[in-house]
């Protein structure tokens, strides 16, 4: 236990050092992506306080992100553009707005639990989304609100590097605060909300009040994330209230793993990075993200972080050398599956794109012209075009079965009693809903 704690400590210290050194290692464009990753990580962790720790599934967290963003932009614009507070403290406005709106919305939403709660949060977000374009004074209508970052404390905040350090400081401070929160009595109460709210009530706690408090805190940290986004973009638009943004922390948190504190942050950082990296190559990034989410919900409910820990535990049990073939088989199965899926989706995307349809209609001699993909031309009518993804997917399936069998036989060989099936992290969350 002590060893693993020390390991985690080293890992976090290394991560912080890497984050500090990042501006010297990356180009401006990548640094901008790093800012987005940090913001998404904070948003996902703020979301996880409510969803993973308190067991309340919210589908409308964009509301608090957006409110925080707009509060920050108005703070930035206040006093004739001078800003209500110096630039580094602007996200405080987002925090205050997130806390206030979160407390009000949370009061309604936490009146019901489980399924109702999920629907109410979604409806509150949609309420703001439908109202925002009409309130020009607050949300600036269709065009939105923009402002300028002002220099403060001798720092100009003109370059991406300055903004990066500001964002990094805020995100690290908030993540530290969120982590320390889990160590406080209130943090334990939050877990109690998820595990058994009836028992909390019998112990004399006001469950509704605790729920509202947790909801408001989660909204506050989401508001800070929104504020940081605005400090970076210097503009805010009512599109911030879109469902797309509410879906992001849900996908990120569960892909990363809600049972590990940094799981959502890792999921958010990974997904945002890939989204940035492939945004030029594909239009279907959200589709891949959705497929990944569904696969994770179906086959490894504790997310990537949970998968990592399970692999590590298994490796520790059977030894690195003996674990290797099984791990290799599993990894290659995953890679083949990804390759097959990407090929199919990209092929379909090109075949159903508007310009290809126009091309197909115009071509008289050959009704189905070829599409260029991965450095080759593929004829939609040819058998091999469809054989390639099928072969990839079939190979992935075979390898997955082999890997599963390997892992199982080896586990039985080393653990004669037979380890029972993995625990299901959401079962508890589900039973309380």
């Amino acid at each position, binding site marked *: 236990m002590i060893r693993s704690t020390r390991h985690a400590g080293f890992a976090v210290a290394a991560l912080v050092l890497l984050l500090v050194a990042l501006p010297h290692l990356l180009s401006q464009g990548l640094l901008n992506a790093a800012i987005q990753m940090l913001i998404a990580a904070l948003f996902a962790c703020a979301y996880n306080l409510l969803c993973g720790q308190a067991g309340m599934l919210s589908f409308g967290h964009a509301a608090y992100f957006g409110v925080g963003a707009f509060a920050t932009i108005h703070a930035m614009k206040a006093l004739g553009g001078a800003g209500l507070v110096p630039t580094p403290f602007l996200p405080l406005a987002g925090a205050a707005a997130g806390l206030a709106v979160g407390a009000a919305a949370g009061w309604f939403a936490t009146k019901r639990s489980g399924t109702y709660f999920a629907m109410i949060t979604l409806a509150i977000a949609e309420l703001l989304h439908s109202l925002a374009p009409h309130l020009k004074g607050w949300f600036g209508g269709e065009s939105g609100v923009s402002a300028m970052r002002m220099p403060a404390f001798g720092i100009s905040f003109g370059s991406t590097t300055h903004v990066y350090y500001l964002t990094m400081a805020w995100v690290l401070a908030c993540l530290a605060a969120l982590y320390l929160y889990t160590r406080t009595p209130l943090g334990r109460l939050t877990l109690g909300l998820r595990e058994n709210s009836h028992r909390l009530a019998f112990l004399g706690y006001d469950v509704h009040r605790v729920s509202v408090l947790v909801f408001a805190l989660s909204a506050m940290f989401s508001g800070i994330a929104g504020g940081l986004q605005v400090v970076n973009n210097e503009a805010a638009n009512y599109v911030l209230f879109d469902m797309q943004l509410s879906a992001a922390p849900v996908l990120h948190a569960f892909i990363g793993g809600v049972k590990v504190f940094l799981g959502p942050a890792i999921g958010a950082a990974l997904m945002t990075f890939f989204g940035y990296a492939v945004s030029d190559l594909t239009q279907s990034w959200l589709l891949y993200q959705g497929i990944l989410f569904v696969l994770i919900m179906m086959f490894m409910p504790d997310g990537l972080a949970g998968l990592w820990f399970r692999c590590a535990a298994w490796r520790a049990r059977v030894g690195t050398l003996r674990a290797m073939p099984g791990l290799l088989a599993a990894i290659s199965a995953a890679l083949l599956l990804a390759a097959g899926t990407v090929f199919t989706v990209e092929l379909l995307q090109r075949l159903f794109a508007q310009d290809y349809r126009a091309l197909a209609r115009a071509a008289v001699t050959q009704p189905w012209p070829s599409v260029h993909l991965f450095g080759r031309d593929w004829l939609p009518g040819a058998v091999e075009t469809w054989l390639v993804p099928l072969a990839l997917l079939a190979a992935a399936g075979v390898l997955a079965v082999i890997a599963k069998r390997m892992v199982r036989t080896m586990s039985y060989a080393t653990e004669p009693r037979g380890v029972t099936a993995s625990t299901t992290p959401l079962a508890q969350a*589900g039973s309380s809903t």
Partner: protein
Amino acid sequence: MDTFVVSLLNGAVYGLLLFMVSAGLTLIFGMMGVLNFAHASFYMLGAYFAYALEGTLGFWGALVASPFLVMGFGVAVERYFLRRVHHHGHAHELLLTFGLAFICAELIKLFFGNYPVNYRIPQAIDFAAFTVGSVGYPAYRVFMGGVALAMFGLMYLLLARTRVGIVVRSAIYKPRMVEALGHNVPVVFMGVFGVGAGLAGLAGAVAGAFYTTNPNMALELGAMVFVVVVVGGLGSLEGAMLASLLIGVVTSLAVSIDLSLADLLAHVGARDWAEAVGGLFTLKVSSLAATLPFALMLLVLLVRPGGLLGEKP
């Protein structure tokens, strides 16, 4: 007066449409305890399937075939997705359907593009059924309302008057007991899920031609359907009917009200103050039409958290 009657009728038709979608959601929830996030996606799929089949089967053929396709899709979702994660608990099922809804929307964008498609009602039935004052009332709206009412009647007869209905109702109430009596409850669940999905698909196929068919329609309607089931009370068909009609009529009437809070405050002599404050005070009710259902939901939660016809929490 004429416009009032017309908006009342429009509201009722929209409400009936909402009911068609929320009925399936409520039934599925009552039976399996699963809030199906993808339910509004079934509505969208219904519209898109009908659009895709229109060329080969004709409008009416597509209208009949599309709900069955959606039903098959719903059955597959229940059998191969939901049943697999059932032992993880309801929160997990909710998240899975959320992911499926996400994938549905993205796939629709992939195949049909991220813009409204040209799915319209045929010229032949685009005429006025009757006139209210001087305004002609479109026959297709009457048809939409008729489909919803016929569906409500059929479903009621099926649930209340047939042997299948008895098994379904008892499976909702005591699934284990029904299983012990020799009925195949998983198949009943699958059937109800499929029928619920098919109903949503039918609503989509019928309504998509009249309203717009675009990749956002699932989300727009989905939020409204959630409002309906919260206001009506989850699991109650009558509640869903009442809430759908209420919300349909309220939204439709609000569009034609050209008043704001400032006009109301003018009666107590505070118009200037209200106009100086701006914001919510000078907002016209007509532009709030899309917001009112959500406000109604918050109000219901405040005074009757179980919903209008739901049980006490």
